[in-house]
């Protein structure tokens, strides 16, 4: 029995691959009209979760309901109401923009009139109106992703599943992308998205952090930030690496990570810590501009939580790149913006 306000429900969803439990007893629900973000490092199980919810992969255990359909029994019927954008570009490169749209419209039984109206509208919103007869393979990365979204939305779905939709997409296209998504939310569509960009996670109504197939927490971005144990200090400096090495492991600092213009530290007592940091850095003869307390971002929380999870497991051998306070690949990418 799914409560009417929950469009997506997962109950103990589990999927294993040889040697790894990709998704481990995942339970959460997404409400109608909500945009829900799944974040987590590579290998956290985000893509596997999306695939199971899209009905393209069968879970080993547990159940899931999407748009009122139990996926174990009615995956094929649910698919009429779901649109799924896989992480990898799923369109036909040797077909034009229009041909791809028509193909997906036909598969979902969209009448011609509706298809034409809707594709004109969506292509305009995506800023792609003049590329209709271009081959999909000749589009830029951002255009491809937007075309993927247009194809996914051509049949007016109830549930949209997006797997890292803005990965490698330019800032302008990303803005188009989010504008389209927010328009849909107004129409009562439910969106579940995974993202590697933490600033995008902050645009979601709620986020869930996955790590090694399990959910570490799930709340609104604001609540999550408020729940961070301690405060975040920002150190602006030209060469953060030696400073990071200097501060790693200092009593009272739980996390040190490199961000765009310096370092972020999670500390227990910011007022006491700032002068201590200044003297330590000066003593080491390292240059450093400002040290100040900043509002915590999801990223701060994220690193803190993943690191805490690994510490709890005593699983130091299995460091994810995000748990390592070094410049993880994902954060570097996030910093490019």
């Amino acid at each position, binding site marked *: 029995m799914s409560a009417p306000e929950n469009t997506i429900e997962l109950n103990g969803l589990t999927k294993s691959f040889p040697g790894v439990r990709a998704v481990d007893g995942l339970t959460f629900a997404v409400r109608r009209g909500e945009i829900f973000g799944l974040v987590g490092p590579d290998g956290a199980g985000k893509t596997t979760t999306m695939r199971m919810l899209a009905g393209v*992969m069968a879970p080993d255990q547990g159940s899931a309901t999407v748009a009122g359909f139990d996926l174990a029994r009615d995956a094929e019927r649910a698919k009429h109401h779901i649109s799924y954008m*896989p992480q990898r570009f799923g369109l036909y490169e040797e077909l034009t923009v229009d041909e791809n749209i028509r193909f997906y419209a036909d*598969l979902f*039984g969209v009448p011609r009139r509706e298809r034409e109206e809707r594709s004109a509208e969506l292509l305009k919103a995506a800023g792609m109106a003049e590329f209709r007869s271009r081959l999909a393979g000749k589009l830029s990365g951002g255009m491809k992703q937007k075309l993927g979204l247009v*194809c996914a939305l051509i049949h007016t779905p109830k549930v949209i599943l997006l797997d890292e939709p803005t990965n490698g997409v330019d800032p302008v296209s990303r803005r188009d992308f989010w504008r389209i998504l927010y328009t849909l939310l107004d129409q009562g569509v439910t969106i579940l998205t995974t993202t590697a960009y933490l600033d995008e996670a902050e645009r979601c109504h709620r986020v869930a952090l996955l790590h090694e197939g399990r959910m570490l927490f799930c709340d609104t971005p604001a609540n999550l930030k408020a729940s961070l144990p301690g405060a975040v200090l920002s150190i602006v400096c030209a060469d953060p690496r030696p400073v990071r090495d200097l501060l790693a492991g200092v009593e009272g600092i739980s996390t040190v990570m490199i961000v765009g213009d310096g370092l972020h530290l999670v500390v227990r007592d910011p007022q006491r810590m700032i002068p201590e940091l200044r003297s330590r850095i000066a003593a080491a003869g390292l240059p450093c501009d400002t040290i100040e307390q900043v509002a915590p971002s999801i990223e701060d929380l994220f690193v803190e939580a993943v690191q805490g999870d690994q510490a709890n497991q005593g699983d130091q051998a299995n460091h994810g790149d995000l748990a390592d306070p070094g410049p993880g690949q994902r954060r570097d990418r996030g910093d490019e913006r």
Partner: protein
Amino acid sequence: MINWNRLCAMARKEMIQIRRDARSIGIVIAMPIVMMFAFGYGVSFDMKHIPVYVYDQEKSQQSQDFLKRFQASVYFDVVKTVSSYPELVRAIDAGSCQIGIVVPPDFSKKLRSGQKVSVQAIFDGTDSNSASVGMSYTEAVAQAHSQQLQLEWLRGRGQGEVRLPLSVDARTWFNENLESMVTIVPGVVAMVMAVVGTFLTSLTVAREWERGTMEQLISTPVTPLEIMLGKLAPYVVIGLADTSLCAVMAVWWFGVPFRGHIWVFLLSTLLFLVVVLSLGYFFSVVAKTQLAASQVSLIATFLPAFLLSGFMYPIDQMPAVVRGITHAVPARYYMAILRNVFLKGSPVLTIWQDLAGLAIFATVLGLAATRVFRKKLT
């Protein structure tokens, strides 16, 4: 059950992809033409112009008369006259001749005295088939010559009217000039089907897995059956077009007769198409990579069609075990029907077993193909 719009959408998409893929277009258009010419002209079992070296140890009028018979035959080309054994041995070693004829120094003397003369013939046995054919031709030449000598001898002894009591009056039906091209060319149609049908379809599903388009495709309401039928429909059209192209070439270019019913030809072609397309689809779904799928499909269809269908080697001359295996080769039935339809044109009742065999394979493989695809990632 089947949503016509979705099926058409699949077929239309597939057709666009074929049209815009240079490799597919090349196979669709060039393959039948290339194969028709390659097999039509390249494969011949007719032994003509076998290179012959002669070593005439006597060089008399009689020995020259005998050797002229080789010269006159279309089956032999007397390339060179040598004057020693080692020269002849070298020529056979080097492959410059396949037959060496050695006339003994006492050829005419023995003939005159009514003794039996042995002429030596040396064959290059590296190709046993050519050697045995050459041997029988050589024997025939010697036979004819001794017959003539016999007649001359009898006439010389006053027997004015000498008649040979027995002769064979041979008429070859269906292939009047006994040209192997005439038997080969209809069979090429089956080879083209095996390559174009299986090879091209083997790529279609595997390509979607490789390029990542399958994941999005299976997230839509399209059913496995619609995917299969939609993907195969364009290849049915292409297959029929290629078959017609081959048939037209066979008749108009190679001068092969077409004596049967066109509808037997089309029906059997359609059945065989179902067989090869189902196989190609099956391998494509199972293999999931284009390379593996195309290789498996060629091994599984082209090779048996080439070796075990009776195309190259007559089935009734195969060992019993191999003959048994040929019953599991669908191309065997199609090949028999093709030869009948082109060359014999005998009533349909005489080939009902082949038609039935083909129909059984088409049904079984077609049904198997509908079951193999799963709309799930693993």
